[in-house]
């Protein structure tokens, strides 16, 4: 029984460590995704501005 308890305790720490690493990666990816979303938004704004400029000059 104490051996089983020790394994359950160890599982908690092992799971915790791997989960923390995954969370860290997820936070990083989420921040990068937000940045890419901003770039995408700016790009569509610029595409609109470029089309407007072309329409105005013709």
């Amino acid at each position, binding site marked *: 029984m104490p051996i089983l308890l*020790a*394994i359950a*305790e*160890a*599982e*908690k*720490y*092992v799971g*915790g*460590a*791997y989960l*923390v*690493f995954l969370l*860290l990666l997820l936070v*990083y990816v989420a921040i*990068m995704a937000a*940045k*890419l979303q*901003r*770039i995408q938004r*700016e*790009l569509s704004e*610029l595409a609109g*501005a*470029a089309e407007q*400029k072309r329409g105005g000059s013709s």
Partner: protein
Amino acid sequence: MRSISLRTIAIATVAVLAVGYALAFFDAPRDADQGLIQKIFYLHVPLAISALVGFVVAAVLAIQHLRTGDAIWDARSYVAIHVSVIFGVGVLLTGAIWAKGAWGTWWEWREPTLVSFLIVFLLYATYYPLRYAIEDRDRQARYASVFAITAGAFVPLNFVAVRAAEPLIHPRTFSSAGGLPDSMLLAFLVCMAGMALLWVTLVRFELAAKGTSADLSRIRRAVLGDDAPPAPAPSIAPVGASASRAMSAGPREERPR
């Protein structure tokens, strides 16, 4: 030589990490002393090695920046430090969890391995305030490179000093007394390769994002002209050969006027 695409590296990273951790959990034997908790080793140690090697790589890239004056090397050095600092956070967190499970304490101040890594991590944490305290882009890049070289030289010295010191409780991964058995060593090496690939993937990913952001600024200037409202300032100088040309060709719109 054509460089490997980001997608290929990302797929390779996922594959190698999956194989590595499958080996670590299903093939490598359970440690006789620590039991299951030793499985954290396959995450914690590759993270630590990748972070420390990443700091040294950043120093080499910074040397290239000072030699050539090209902003791309500064950007690479910055991103290498950034990803290594993130890995450093992972090292400290997973190490603390391992310490709690194995030794019953989250942190041990008398252990040279732990304290020395914390010193290296805190040293690199000062890189950001140092960098952003300087407004002038060229000076910022130069000072950041000098910092990266100095701190990068400190990393191997620190490693040697820790090896020379008497360990209190932290195990030595590759000690002269036996080392790892073959099945553990294989799992460890595959995890190490996966973590190194993850470092490269994240560096390439962030550089690509910064390059796109810089190109976007150039397009904005070309489409909207000089009256264009300034885009949100990128954290570093523009990246990429085209961006470098743009930097030398005219004023930089991100600077406050």
